[in-house]
């Protein structure tokens, strides 16, 4: 085979690396881009460059953001005494879309999985414990809470609102073996801090008929039923 355009070949090669993209799809995309107007393609290229250049991790919760700390962490309307622990930053978006949660987040960056060589130290678990510890340091002397917290957190993040003591940690991890192991591990480490540890319920998807639910899901939903 003889190539007439090395640039096209290179573009196809790069596109093949995208998830779910085989050589044929990559070829179709590359040819499509080639036929597009210049500014459209440059806009795409620029978006990709900015994605890598300006997106950072929030130093507090670990989600991705362009301003550190992220808009959720600095929002004074959010209850920062309640932390929702998730595996990946995408999960933050999912939960945000529900409009059900007004606390703040903590992104672990995955779950414990020896098979993938991910241990507790590879996740942001220590950072979570730190957040809980620091927030609760002033709790014994009620009057001094505000000033103490201000100096502790203020140094790292100037625009952060006052940190109230963290009273609840919500575990919103995947209901698989790895998520369970991670939840179990975190719960154990949080015991000394005397915070309430909760987890989101296993249940039946909205808008589905019971008939179509598999027994396993239905069984779990039953086990974690709530008062009407």
């Amino acid at each position: 085979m003889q190539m007439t355009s090395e640039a096209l070949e290179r573009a196809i090669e790069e596109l093949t690396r995208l998830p779910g993209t085989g050589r044929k799809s990559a070829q179709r995309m590359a040819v499509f881009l080639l036929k597009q107007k210049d500014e459209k393609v440059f806009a795409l290229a620029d978006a990709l460059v900015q994605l890598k250049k300006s997106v950072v991790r929030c130093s507090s919760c670990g989600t991705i953001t362009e301003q550190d700390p992220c808009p959720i962490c600095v929002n004074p309307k959010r209850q920062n005494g309640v932390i929702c622990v998730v595996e990946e930053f995408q999960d933050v978006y999912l939960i945000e879309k529900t409009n059900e949660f007004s606390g703040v987040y903590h992104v672990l960056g995955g779950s414990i999985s020896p098979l993938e060589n991910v241990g507790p130290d590879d996740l942001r678990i220590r950072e979570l414990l730190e957040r809980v510890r620091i927030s609760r340091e002033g709790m014994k002397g009620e009057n001094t809470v505000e000033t103490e917290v201000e100096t502790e957190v203020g140094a790292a993040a100037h625009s952060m609102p006052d940190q109230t003591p963290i009273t609840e940690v919500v575990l919103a991890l995947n209901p698989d073996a790895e998520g369970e192991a991670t939840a179990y591990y975190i719960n154990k480490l949080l015991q000394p801090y005397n915070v309430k540890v909760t987890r989101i319920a296993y249940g039946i998807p909205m808008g589905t008929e019971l008939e179509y639910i598999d027994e396993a899901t239905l069984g779990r939903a039953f086990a974690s039923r709530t008062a009407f």
Partner: protein
Amino acid sequence: MRIERLTLRNFRNHGETEIVAAPGLNLITGPNGSGKTNLIDAIHYLCMSRSFVMSGDQYVVKNGESYFMVEGDFRGSIRASFTVGCNYSRGQGKKMFVNDSPLEKLSDLIGRVPVVVMSPEDLKLTRDGPVERRSFLDSMISQVDQRYLRDLLEYRQVRRQRNKLLQDAGGRWSVIRDSLEVWDRQLAERGAAIIQTRAAMLERFAEYLATEYRTVSGLMLKPTLRYRTIAEEWGDAAELTEIFMRRLEEVRERELEREQTLVGPHRDEIVFYLDDMDIRKYGSQGQHRLFSMALKLAQLSVYTDELDDLPILLLDDLFGNLDQQKTETIVKALARHRGQTFITAASEQPYDEGLFRGDGGAGAGSGSSAHRWFTVSEGKVHLKFTEENHGI
């Protein structure tokens, strides 16, 4: 449950095959290597997402082709009618579809169309190692209990994770102490659930087995079974979980040494006896054959009694090595099955006489419905004979 139309493409030696099956008995005859078994294996794919002759998907693809496809229209009493599809291609792997929408997990398919297979391979059930018996039991329970299948898959995953940790430890307990704990608990909880379900099923199963063995052998020897697991007896699941945790502690040193999980349902054994004789050790060739048949017939009875829909029965070359008299006994035993049946056979001998006659209680799988007879040669299927409504 029954399959109405079956389509295969590039499936072993079938290039393009479509059959419309009878609701009752479907007889498939043809010379060796003509592709009879492939037809019922394709049905098995649609029920269990894999081959029953235990070969990888890549070997199912017809020579010189890059993919295979199987599709079937099913009709049952609960789920009125639906289509199951299976696509496999080199590179893209296997995908299963129900009514054209892809299944997220292959395991979601299991139990939708209950199936029982009887084949010469069944001899392994009593003759070979415990793996064969565990997988028979797992497959039997999974089709009636989705929760069990989920527990099995999760248990396997937890065990893999745990084994990896044990390997990482390099024999030093201190290294993995905290990490192992979170897996131990999960292993014990899921393991206990699996053991509970297995024990409950085996208790019911033992009675069916006794009945079926009597039917196929005509003898009064009593088949029994013993379930060997992590404990002799226990109360509820919580207690079993605690026993499991204690056993893990007991074997910790050896687990660190061997770098794998040494206790749990993955090491369970089921021992079969005829009266007091351990079949695996002392059974004769004939006893093995009859016992393994009784096991499958008992599975069929469990499904018939416990499921809303009758299972599909697939009989692969079952009569090849049996004498005339034994064949008749088996045919009689099978005649009780009122659901859909597929039988493959190299010879046409006992069938044209027995099965297609309406008399004498023969007519396995007849129920109230029609029969069809297909002949296969070199991957091509022809309808040889059809009888709609064969009386009752």
